[in-house]
């Protein structure tokens, strides 16, 4: 409920925003300026989008023409899209990334929500100290704990499996705990008190009231973490070793790049690199376009990692 209304209000707010340029009145001067802004933005949008267009176009080019920088492939070929699956276990990599992403996002969303509810609803000693620790651990660089965390997974016998890529998410993540707590605090407390009077358990308050009312926020957390997991190179690099069948998309794409890049001794089959890079990106673009308002709202309210 709450974010829905917040989103709607935001959209309606957007409409009459003339900005500082056109304060109230709409002179010809400000209209000319508006055209100028749109023109500048259009040029910038082309610059930002052209790499995608280049990639899409190159994926339909033959081996010799990948670098010709022409907009329309000539001759155009569909062969790369047929061959790339045989050149490398790309489908497997996409599947691995999808599986790891769902596990990472699912566990972190559930656990972070449970912990966030603990911080939002209850009154207990040391609450502020504990929450301060949550905020502090948000700032901690992952590089510092990387080696001992590796040793933990090694001692548990999970190095060489996909478990370390999502396992620690079972315990929630500081950034999402912070974000969801803010959201839960926005739910009127009377709802919980009324449910308590009706005999609802504490977990029931979370599961039947807080969680359903916070669906937009939970979706934001899920898609953020899914994207972060899909993007991650460091952990697959550390934990998956040489088992190509366990590779996720970033690690697989990197190995393709090494395999075909002449600098690293490859034979220069750049058409496969280009096609694989595009196929690695498309799921994320689809997710963004489908859940755009969640992304924008999530980033705008909380700030994103960078």
């Amino acid at each position, binding site marked *: 409920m709450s974010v829905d209304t917040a989103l709607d209000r935001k959209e309606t707010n957007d409409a009459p925003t003339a900005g500082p340029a056109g304060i109230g009145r709409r002179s010809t001067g400000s209209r000319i300026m508006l055209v100028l802004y749109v023109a500048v933005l259009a040029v910038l949008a082309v610059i930002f989008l052209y790499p995608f267009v280049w990639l899409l176009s190159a994926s339909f080019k033959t081996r010799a023409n990948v670098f010709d920088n022409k907009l329309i492939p000539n001759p155009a070929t569909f062969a790369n899209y047929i061959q790339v699956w045989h050149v490398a276990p790309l489908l497997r990599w996409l599947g691995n990334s999808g599986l790891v992403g769902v596990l990472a996002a699912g566990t972190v969303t559930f656990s972070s929500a449970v912990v966030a509810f603990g911080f939002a609803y209850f009154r207990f000693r040391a609450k502020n100290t504990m929450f301060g620790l949550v905020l502090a651990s948000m700032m901690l660089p992952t590089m510092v704990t990387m080696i001992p965390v590796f040793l933990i997974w090694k001692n548990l016998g999970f190095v060489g499996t996909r478990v370390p890529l999502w396992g620690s998410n079972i315990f929630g993540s500081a950034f999402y705990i912070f974000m969801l707590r803010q959201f839960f605090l926005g739910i009127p407390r009377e709802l919980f008190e009324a449910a308590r009077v009706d005999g609802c358990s504490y977990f029931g308050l979370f599961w039947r009231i807080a969680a359903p009312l916070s669906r937009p926020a939970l979706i934001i957390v899920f898609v953020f973490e899914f994207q972060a997991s899909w993007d991650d190179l460091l952990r697959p690099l550390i934990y998956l070793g040489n088992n190509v069948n366990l590779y996720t998309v970033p690690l697989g794409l990197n190995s393709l790049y090494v395999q075909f890049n002449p600098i690293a001794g490859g034979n220069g089959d750049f058409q496969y690199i280009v096609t694989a890079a595009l196929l690695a990106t498309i799921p994320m673009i689809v997710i963004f376009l489908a859940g755009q308002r969640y992304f924008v709202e999530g980033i*705008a309210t909380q700030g994103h*990692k960078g």
Partner: protein
Amino acid sequence: MSVINRGSTGSKQRTPAAARVRPQYDARETRAAFAFISPWIIGFLVFTAGPMIWSLVLSFTNYNLVDTPKNVGFKNYRRMFDDPRVHTALGNTFLYAVMFVPLAIAVALALAMLLNRLTSGAGFFRTAFYLPVMTPAVAVAVLFSLLLNGDYGLINKALALVGIQGPQWLTDPHWIKPSIVLMGLWGLGAAVVIFLAALKNVPKDLYEAAAIDGASGWRRFRSITVPMISPAIFFQVIVLTIAALQMFDKVYVLFGNPGSATYAGNASLFYSMYLFQEAFQALRMGYASALAWLLFVIIMVITLIQVKVGNRIVYYEGDRR
């Protein structure tokens, strides 16, 4: 934003009541609360606090994963200060951060201000600027390694059209950091969205009052826009700096793979990559732990300085100072 506001009023209503009615904490409620936050407590102990201490202990040892760790005192730290690769890596990483962060803030702010002027269609441009953020870092590195190719790359072809001879972006040691900066700038859409949201929250009447007083556009920018969105800028500076100092994935793809590691020489050695190589390729876990602690201290110190400076400059609404 409205979500947060509602949150704070919610807790305000609660606090006085809690103080009067319940001077003491309910034991049952406390037990339930700890049950709810227990996942985080366990995770914090096992994956954050524990590893921090362990990593500090390891930094005083030599450990290669096979033999038991051998205590060597401060040797790793002394070695670190004499290691020329540490100096190179730190220099490269700082240079990159100093180039990237101010440029990213300026470009993102400019884009957000342009978007803020639009009466319609801002959604389309916002999507255009945000799609690169969704692109996996490895794909960005791969794509730009082709676009930035000194001989056939699109960017040098485009520069040639206007009569500029483009550099060998990824092999000329002087152009490696600018190349990585360029890749980073392509993906600054998140900062644009944050700045745009902050700009939308600047009260319009401030601009109206300034216009009546005859303030110029630059003056309005400097005296209204920048102070009003300074918390967002401040936050972005901190986040982008921390990320820049840990830059890893794009650099690894382009320069860190065994076989392609050396062709750009020392200019491509970033700190996190050196740390990774020492830990997981050379298996010097003790030395790498010392490197990790140095990075931690550097990031802490830089963040603290930024917070101290920021608190003097940043304008918080409702601040009583």
